[in-house]
């Protein structure tokens, strides 16, 4: 069981669960499949030794954002019957467009110039919290602080938007 096999299996599972996200008719099932996809992606991160990102992915994405989606979904009380469906033409053209894009990207890949992977011995440890923290608080400290401003803006926006207004809605 070498790493290659594990990587391939993991990749296949990721693709499978992503496909189920877009295919399934019940919106709650879509959400759950997306959570599964996130877990698969985190597994990929661990495989690449990006441990911090993996954990953060699970906590933030699967834990917070997806829960939020689920909450809203429950709030809107959508069910399988009144889910809007697209016509077959739309589905077909979307799939064809997507497939074409994929093909084109792979074709672009063919012409790429290969750069050798790094052979540094301490390359293993770049995914750890320590090295990330070092980089984050020296080189990228400004974006770090700006992101807090962004969060405040998002919070204020969310609260303001979702506030129930005084007037009666029909």
């Amino acid at each position: 069981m070498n790493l290659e096999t594990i990587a391939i299996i993991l990749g296949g599972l990721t693709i499978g669960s992503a496909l189920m996200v877009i295919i399934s008719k019940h919106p709650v099932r879509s959400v759950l499949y997306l959570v599964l996809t996130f877990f698969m992606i985190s597994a990929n991160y661990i495989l690449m030794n990006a441990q911090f990102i993996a954990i953060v992915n699970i906590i933030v994405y699967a834990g917070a954002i997806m829960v939020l989606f689920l909450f809203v979904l429950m709030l809107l009380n959508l069910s399988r019957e009144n889910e809007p469906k697209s016509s077959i033409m739309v589905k077909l053209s979307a799939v064809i467009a997507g497939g074409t894009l994929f093909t084109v990207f792979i074709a672009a890949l063919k012409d790429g110039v290969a750069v050798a992977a790094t052979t540094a011995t301490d390359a293993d440890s770049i995914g750890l919290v320590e090295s990330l923290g070092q980089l984050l608080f020296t080189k990228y400290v400004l974006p770090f602080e700006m992101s807090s401003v962004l969060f405040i803006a998002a919070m204020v926006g969310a609260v303001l938007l979702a506030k129930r207004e005084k007037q009666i809605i029909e």
Partner: protein
Amino acid sequence: MSVDQLILMILALPLLGALINGTLGKNMSKQLVGSIATVVMFVSFALALMVFNSNHTTQLIQLFDVIKLDDFTLHARLQVDSLSIWMTLIVTGVGSLIHLFSMGYMSHDKGYYKFFTYLNLFIFAMLILVLGSNYFMLFFGWEGVGICSYLLIGFHYSDEQKGMLNGVAARKAFIMNRIGDLGLLIGLFLILAQFGTLEYTELADKLTIENIEPSTWMMFGITLCLFIGATGKSAQIPLFTWLPDAMAGPTPVSALIHAATMVTAGIFLVVRSNFMFETPGAQITQDIMFYVGLATSLVAAFIAMRQNDIKKVLAYSTVSQLGLLFVALGMGAYTAAMFHVTTHAFFKALLFLGSGSVIHAMSDEQDIRKMGGLRKFIPITHATFLIGTLAIAGFPLLSGFYSKDEILAHAVMHSPVIYAILMVSVAMTAIYMFRLYFLTFHGSFRGSDEAKHHLHESPKSMTIPLLVLAILSVFGGLLNLPGVILAKGTHWLSHYLEHNTRGLELIKTEHLTNSQAMLLMGGAVLMTLIILFGTFVVYVKRNSVAKSDEQLKGWELASNQKLYFDELYNALFVKPIEWISMKLHQFVELFVLNKSILGFVGLIDKSGNIVRKWQSGIVASYLFWMVVGIVGLVVYYLVKF
């Protein structure tokens, strides 16, 4: 002052008058407008007299260069010699009298200032025509008088009843003139191609002194084209139908343009180009001129015999006299033609102005069947009109007698048959003129009572020119007396013209012996007196009134209906062109053009519609097209690199 300055002033004054009246005339009083125009004319005439007195040699006055090329320069240059000064005198002299007449005649018209602007402009153009030193200046004046004639004939274009007709008549005159102008222009191009110059003096030198002999066909072509131009302006067959229609213009216009000046431009052109018409190749053209003139004078005289509009009779009379002039030119009798032009200007202007006075008295009635017995009411007009009639009919000792007789003398020397035919034409002239006179002024008044109340003599501004012209008509014969009456004749005008006009001095015309001349004159006098007596009997004693239109038959109907010339032209030219025009409109315009242009517009419309539907508002489709775009971009870069 030197001749240069005088000539420039003679030219500039009418132009100045036209400019002042044209720009400021609307706000000036009628008196002022008329006075400016008339005074300008009289001053020009006085200056022309001064030049006439002092000038003895040909002078050229350079104004400026119009075109300057390497091998050809077109000058705007004036030439002062006997012929041009004589024509200037006629134009300004008779013109000033007509201006004076117009002050009274047009006093009730609200376009007063426009009328005098156009009149002065016309005089200016005519002066350029006669004073120019090359064919270009002649053509410039030619076109100028054509334009002014159009403006003046259609002067009452906004009249409720006849406004349309006036406009149509003006257009007819202009277009027929244009056909002639085309001939003239081709002639000018031929002259330029053959000789490389348009100046009269240089051309005369080339043909007479240097003896350059162009081919006969070339000279025939040049002279024929010049003659075609003269046909248009001087109303010969086939381009004469515009002149009777041009009577739609006010009477002073008819007097000035269509009796005294513009229609003589054709004659002037031929006399000016006499050295060209005397070359061997041009003999055919001279014959053509001769026969066309003969035919015209007969046809016009025939038509005039049963016309009932006082101005139409005079119009056909003009055409007939012009025909007679072309007969004279066809025989090479240039000075005789100029003599007749002068006397014709006098008595024809007199007759037209007199008819204007009659029309004014009759409150704008022009049909002679409604007139009669007017001699008691308008005595001065009657007396002058009688003098004019006698002059044109060739009554002995009046001016017309001498000038016609000279032409007839030349005709006899040419061939007796032609003389006989010309006598027929002269006889018909006498018949219709006396008919006109008797029906208008003798007998009892046949008009309405209301018109009878308004009959009054014209004001002095109108009668004075009549009197002056009458005197000139009587004594004008003195200008060129043949050597019969006095022991040695004067032939003053012939000598004056020959003395200083290029080409004329080389033309030798024979003269009759005294006995032959006496015989001729006696015959003409006898005929005139017989006709006078005959018409008197018919129209006065027997009171034979002109029939109304429905009662005409036979030759009278043909004469009254103008020998159906207009109908012929209508069928030959107008209808086919209208038909072609309509067919073109149907097929080319409506079918092809509309379809193609509208089709193009529709195409753009439809394609716009298709593109419009792209904006569906659905985000997914936008995303779809974005993806397509990205794919396209990436493929493009892949392929390129």
